[in-house]
């Protein structure tokens, strides 16, 4: 991952907390002293559709906040992989919620990171914190957002009415972080090409 700029597209079902996950990354990036931008997809209010947002975290002022070729895609559901997989930069990363997305023939020029985010969230007793599991996992890879800032910022980012959820959100974040730290995720770099040989 580049040490200067991280361009991320985050996508999933409406209701999976995608926009919030993006906000968390942008807010923490800002608190780490980086330049950041966050753009949501917004459409007519048709419920249950897909949601996505674009986040840039950068050492330098951000020219275009729009991202054609992301360094990373964080995909929470299957349609998101289908939609954004092709756009990932060669050598970039696809981090996906393996609880809802089965292993398939991915591109062989990207790094794949499989995180069973929904299962982890369920274990924590709150299906809605799968997004924070992903935040934790991403934080482990990121060169620009730090673990400490993330932990410090998280409780303040929850909406006023949801402060009591701080604990479970932090737990989810921690689980995601540890999951990557302990290298429990399934795929390393270019693994598909290895798989092809099997």
């Amino acid at each position, binding site marked *: 991952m580049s040490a200067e700029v991280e361009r991320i597209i985050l996508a999933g079902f409406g209701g999976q907390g995608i926009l919030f996950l993006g906000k968390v990354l942008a807010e923490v990036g800002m608190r780490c002293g980086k330049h950041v931008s966050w753009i949501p997809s917004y459409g*007519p*209010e048709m419920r249950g559709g897909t949601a996505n947002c674009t986040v840039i975290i950068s050492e330098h002022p951000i020219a275009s906040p729009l991202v054609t070729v992301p360094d990373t895609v964080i995909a929470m559901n299957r349609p998101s992989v289908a939609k954004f997989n092709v756009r990932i930069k060669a050598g970039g990363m696809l981090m996906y919620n393996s609880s809802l997305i089965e292993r398939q023939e991915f591109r062989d020029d990207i790094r794949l990171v499989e995180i069973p985010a929904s299962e982890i969230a369920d274990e924590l007793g709150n299906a809605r914190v799968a997004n924070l599991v992903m935040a934790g996992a991403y934080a482990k890879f990121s060169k620009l957002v730090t673990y400490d800032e993330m932990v410090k910022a998280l409780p303040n980012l929850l909406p006023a009415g949801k402060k009591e959820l701080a604990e479970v959100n932090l737990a989810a974040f921690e689980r995601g972080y540890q999951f990557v730290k302990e290298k429990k995720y399934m795929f390393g770099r270019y693994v598909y090409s290895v798989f092809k040989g099997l």
Partner: protein
Amino acid sequence: MEQVFARPKCMSKTPFHYCPGCDHGVVHRLVGECLDELEVGDKAIGVAPVGCSVFAYDYFAFDFNQAAHGRAPAVATGIKRVRPDHIVFTYQGDGDLAAIGTAEIVHAANRGEKITVIFINNAIYGMTGGQMAPTTLIGMKTATSPYGRDAQLCGHPIRVSELLATLEAPVYVTRVAVNTPANLMKAKKALKNAFRLQKEGKGFSFVEVVSICPTNWGKSPVDAHKWLAEKMLPVFPLGTYKDSTGIENS
């Protein structure tokens, strides 16, 4: 065997895009059934301005005009004057009809345009994400009344049916709901009366449907219907406010 739940002939096969439990779909269906039963489905022209029902043209098989916010009664006036033999109706929300389109509805009614107006009163701006409507109840919290609607600042909920009933020209003004099977039957009857009056060239007919918006009310459809009965109906009492031809008794 008779197919009881067949789609009305004058409706298309497009599935509704409305949120689960929303009343818009129910009222669409009633409109379709009434037009079929009066055998005017092929002579109907609908006008839908913006609001969640802006895509109503997708659900009906007959001709449609998609109008600007609030202007449907004026657009319908134009259509009806050119095609007096057609059944022209508008389908409008409360933000649309009772806020930005107040002038158009009052004057179309006052001229006695021979059109039918279907008015979906859900006490909120649905499509734009839950802002206060002129029909929003006192104390009700919305995106633009975060502290609850304050009568001192925003006035009281407008009762459009009562207002229009004071005019000379309208022949039929009624308020219905579709929250219970009994009310649903009454609503259908009202819609049929309204369209029949137009078919007979009698004059302006108006049907207000007190409705729910589960999404922006933040309630399940069941709770929303309960809330409608408890909170909305006392402010917007069901009943017929004008019936100058006596169609309800004939």
